[in-house]
């Protein structure tokens, strides 16, 4: 292969580094009205009255919007395909506010200073209500968070708002209870995962204007520009055909920009005033008033035989979706569906539980999407089981884990909000990933621990993981290729580059198939008027789903080109990407052919469009190994090395794939060790800036060792699977296992802090 599986630099890297205009706010009209939202100071309250008269009277204030300015239409901001598996439980503004930071009303003013002054002049009388702040007591709590009658589910998701339940699910293969009775060893324990903030560097940003064709045009920092258009139309009852949403360069998303943010409010402002408007979240708003990762509680039961055969897994989950139910059911289901098939040889497996409303900042999509939470619980529990069995955790995994050519009944039972899709693992090099990881971390000389001196102990730990590649039969991606004169191409894709490099790797796929050089493919992505449909950047779908669409469009373009060349040369031709060679000895170059088609003979525009919807979701797999040095006097520890061996099929761009894995690993290390969205007893977020919410800096990252298994997924474009999320899944469990191996302390709630380790060691000492 000439272009694919090569580490080409990102096609837009130079312009980005040199500071060219690229991001949403760079394209705001200079005279945009500044839109600011007044946010609730209470975790739960009813708005008795809003007096906006003083704000309205302030010079420079264009308008103030409250719930009275919007028709009462429930919708979901989740940013998913339609009908969504998330409940329609949100109004643009409501008479109730359900978390600290929830939207009360908005102002649009001529400057930021005036907008902020206006917010202070708005007088709101609240009836403060008792909040639900402990998700373990939310079900059937006397306080109901969503009493409003209009809200509903789009199809059955177990939505029971009167019980504070946003979604419910259960499934069972075999009979777990019966199988557990026959096991030699059963372990049972409870694990907690915390809320994590996305902390993409670019805050949520959107701007709007009415263009010369009287269309509402938005630039939005979004992962789902087509869903954004649809949701604006639904929430405002404004014709879909009059809205254009453009996603320019996005400064990171990680799932946080899958959902709607200020898009509806700026649209309303611009439609009412006719003036351009813009909204940029402050970092405080990004923390308090967007979304974070669903905190979860896992009650795990694992049963095995003395020989190390895993027989049954019972996994009961409680998930906290906060004030609104964005992604409530689907994140919950992925905690099972993209975790439990790792151990596919069990006789019985059960996965069930509830997703509850609380008066917390809503949870939403976040890289890993439940799998990181489930992986922490299961892969911690597996090591605990091995301890009981006195069995090497590597041998145990090698005996029980998924191998190539195998399947799991869970694939057919569990999809994302719906039933799943049966599939055989045509590519699964998990066995190689484990074997290679053992070598790279030097496991045999370090496991379980090596005392380095009187107070520092080295420990190693590991975990295996899987993810998916898009949502089969739901996620569709499409691509259009257009031939230009001089023989270069435009690739138009709905796929959404949010920094992961999808514009580059999709261009590589097109170039490979067309025999072109990468710079002959000019990419435009994610403009709802100009590019074909794509569900967006989520569910690890772009390489696999959008990539297959691009490959098919390129195949079609090649056929069209050959057809035209045959017409021009009047003979059968072969095409090497540059020249068409006829059997009669005649030749025509691509350049000559394209100019002929534009200007001279058989004039026509060649375009090809292809769509792709997956018929399965081939999982990428990985093994993560970590080496930690723990100070047993203080509980402090350093992560010395993190080894990742990943099977994502063929890497379309190895260096960009490595960047996806390593970025995921460090975000996973953040979740495992540093990051914790903390809420005060009164419901306020304590960690609402980057001083109090600490993400890993350069100093914490010592060494990342990343390799890819040689693997080929026949259904993927040039053998590729996805790689966007898999990297984040292993660090919590692998680090927890390493800490246990070093100290004997089992951390069952994230994050893993020196305080918890020290406390554990003291308890063990007693």
């Amino acid at each position, binding site marked *: 292969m000439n272009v694919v599986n090569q*580490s080409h*630099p*990102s096609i*837009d*890297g*130079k312009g*980005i*580094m*040199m*500071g*060219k*205009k*690229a*991001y949403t*706010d*760079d394209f705001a009209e*200079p005279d945009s009205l500044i839109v600011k939202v007044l946010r609730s100071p209470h975790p739960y309250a009813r708005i008795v009255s809003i007096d906006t008269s003083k704000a309205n009277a302030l010079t420079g204030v264009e308008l103030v919007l409250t719930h009275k300015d919007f028709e009462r239409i429930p919708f979901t901001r989740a940013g998913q395909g339609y009908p969504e598996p998330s409940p329609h439980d949100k109004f643009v503004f409501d008479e109730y506010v359900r978390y600290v930071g929830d939207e009360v009303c908005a102002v649009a003013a001529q400057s930021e*200073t005036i907008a902020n002054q206006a917010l202070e002049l708005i007088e709101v009388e609240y009836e403060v209500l008792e909040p639900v702040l402990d998700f373990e007591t939310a079900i059937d709590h006397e306080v109901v968070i969503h009493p409003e009658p209009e809200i509903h589910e789009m199809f059955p998701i177990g939505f029971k708002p009167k019980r504070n339940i946003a979604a419910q699910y259960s499934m069972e293969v075999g009979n777990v209870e019966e199988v557990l009775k026959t096991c030699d060893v059963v372990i049972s324990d409870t694990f907690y995962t915390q809320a994590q903030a*996305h*902390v*993409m*560097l*670019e*805050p949520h940003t959107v701007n709007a204007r009415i263009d010369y064709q009287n269309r509402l045009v938005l630039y939005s920092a979004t992962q789902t520009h087509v869903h954004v258009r649809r949701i604006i139309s639904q929430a405002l009852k404004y014709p879909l055909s009059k809205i254009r949403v453009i996603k320019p*360069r*996005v*400064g*990171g998303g*990680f799932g946080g920009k899958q959902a709607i943010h200020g898009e509806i409010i700026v649209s309303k402002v611009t439609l009412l005033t006719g003036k351009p408007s813009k909204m*940029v979240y*402050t*970092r*405080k708003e990004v923390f308090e008033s967007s979304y974070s990762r669903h905190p979860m509680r896992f009650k795990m039961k694992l049963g095995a035989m003395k020989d190390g055969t895993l027989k049954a897994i019972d996994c009961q989950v409680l998930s906290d979706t906060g004030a609104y139910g964005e992604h409530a059911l689907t994140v919950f289901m992925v905690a099972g569906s993209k975790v439990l098939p790792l151990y596919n040889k069990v006789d019985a497996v059960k996965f069930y539980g509830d997703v509850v409303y609380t008066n917390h900042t809503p949870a939403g999509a976040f890289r890993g999407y439940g799998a990181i939470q489930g992986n922490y619980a299961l892969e911690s529990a597996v090591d605990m089981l091995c301890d009981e069995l006195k069995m090497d955790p590597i041998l145990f995994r090698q005996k029980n884990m998924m191998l190539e050519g195998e399947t799991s009944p869970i694939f057919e039972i569990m999809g994302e909000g719906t039933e799943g899709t049966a599939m055989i693992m045509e590519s699964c090099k998990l066995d190689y990933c484990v074997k290679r990881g053992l070598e790279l971390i030097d496991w045999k000389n370090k496991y379980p621990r090596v005392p380095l001196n009187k107070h520092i102990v080295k420990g190693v730990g590991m975990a295996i993981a899987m993810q998916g590649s898009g949502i089969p039969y739901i996620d569709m991606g499409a691509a259009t290729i257009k031939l230009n004169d001089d023989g270069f191409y435009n690739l138009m894709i709905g796929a959404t580059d*949010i*920094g992961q*490099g999808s514009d580059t790797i999709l261009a590589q796929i097109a170039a490979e198939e067309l025999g072109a050089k990468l710079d002959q493919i000019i990419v435009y992505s994610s403009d709802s008027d100009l590019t074909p449909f794509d569900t967006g950047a989520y569910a690890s779908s772009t390489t696999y789903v959008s990539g297959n669409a691009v490959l098919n469009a390129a195949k079609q373009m090649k056929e069209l080109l050959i057809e035209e060349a045959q017409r021009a040369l009047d003979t059968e031709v072969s095409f090497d990407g540059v020249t068409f060679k006829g059997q009669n000895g005649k030749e025509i170059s691509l350049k000559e052919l394209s100019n002929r088609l534009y200007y001279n003979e058989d004039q026509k525009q060649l375009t090809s469009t292809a769509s792709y919807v997956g018929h399965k979701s081939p999982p990428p797999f990985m093994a993560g190994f970590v080496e930690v040095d723990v100070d047993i006097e203080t509980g402090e520890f350093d992560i010395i090395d993190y080894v990742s061996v990943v099977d994502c099929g063929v890497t379309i*761009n*190895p*260096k*960009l*794939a*490595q*960047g996806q894995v*390593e*970025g*995921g*690993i*460090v*975000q996973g290390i953040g979740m495992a060790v540093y990051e914790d969205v903390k809420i005060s007893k009164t419901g306020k977020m304590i960690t609402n*800036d*980057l*001083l109090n919410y600490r*993400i*890993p*800096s*350069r*100093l914490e*990252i010592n060494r*990342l060792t*990343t390799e890819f298994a040689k693997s080929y997924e026949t259904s993927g474009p040039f053998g590729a699977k996805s790689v966007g999320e898999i990297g984040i899944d292993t660090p919590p469990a692998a680090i927890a296992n390493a800490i246990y191996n070093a100290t004997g302390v089992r951390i069952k709630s994230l994050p893993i802090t020196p305080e918890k380790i020290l406390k554990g060691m003291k308890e063990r000492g007693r």
Partner: protein
Amino acid sequence: MRVSLTINGDVKAFDVSIEEYLLDTLRKHNYKSVRRGCDNTTCGACTVLLDGKPVPSCSILTVRADQHEITTVEGIAKEAERLSEYFGHEGADQCGYCNPSIALTVHAMLLENPKPTDEDIKKYLVGNLCRCTGYEGQFRAIKKYMEDEL
């Protein structure tokens, strides 16, 4: 208040309010490579050079920069372009929101310390947060850039 700033070598005069921050002044006057990330000096995305030293423009009042020299990435275009090749080859430019600020910080570091150790590089750039790359690709790129350029 009228201030005079030398931006990338050009003398510019602006009318600003006394509470205006340099980041807002620059963006208002079309220096869009300077970007807001956090509002309180913790992320580094708004870095500019003030008389050659990297500072967070989100927290410098424009009036304090009066009569000083400001450098944005456009002022070190050649170096930024060279550095971008190394970022490209190491797969280090993901979302890129922080990239101009990293180019400026690397430029300033090399002026202060032409031969930084690995530890020196990490410490000098610690204020430039990145949520995409895991830092490893950026680190490789910066090291190779230094090896070839110096």
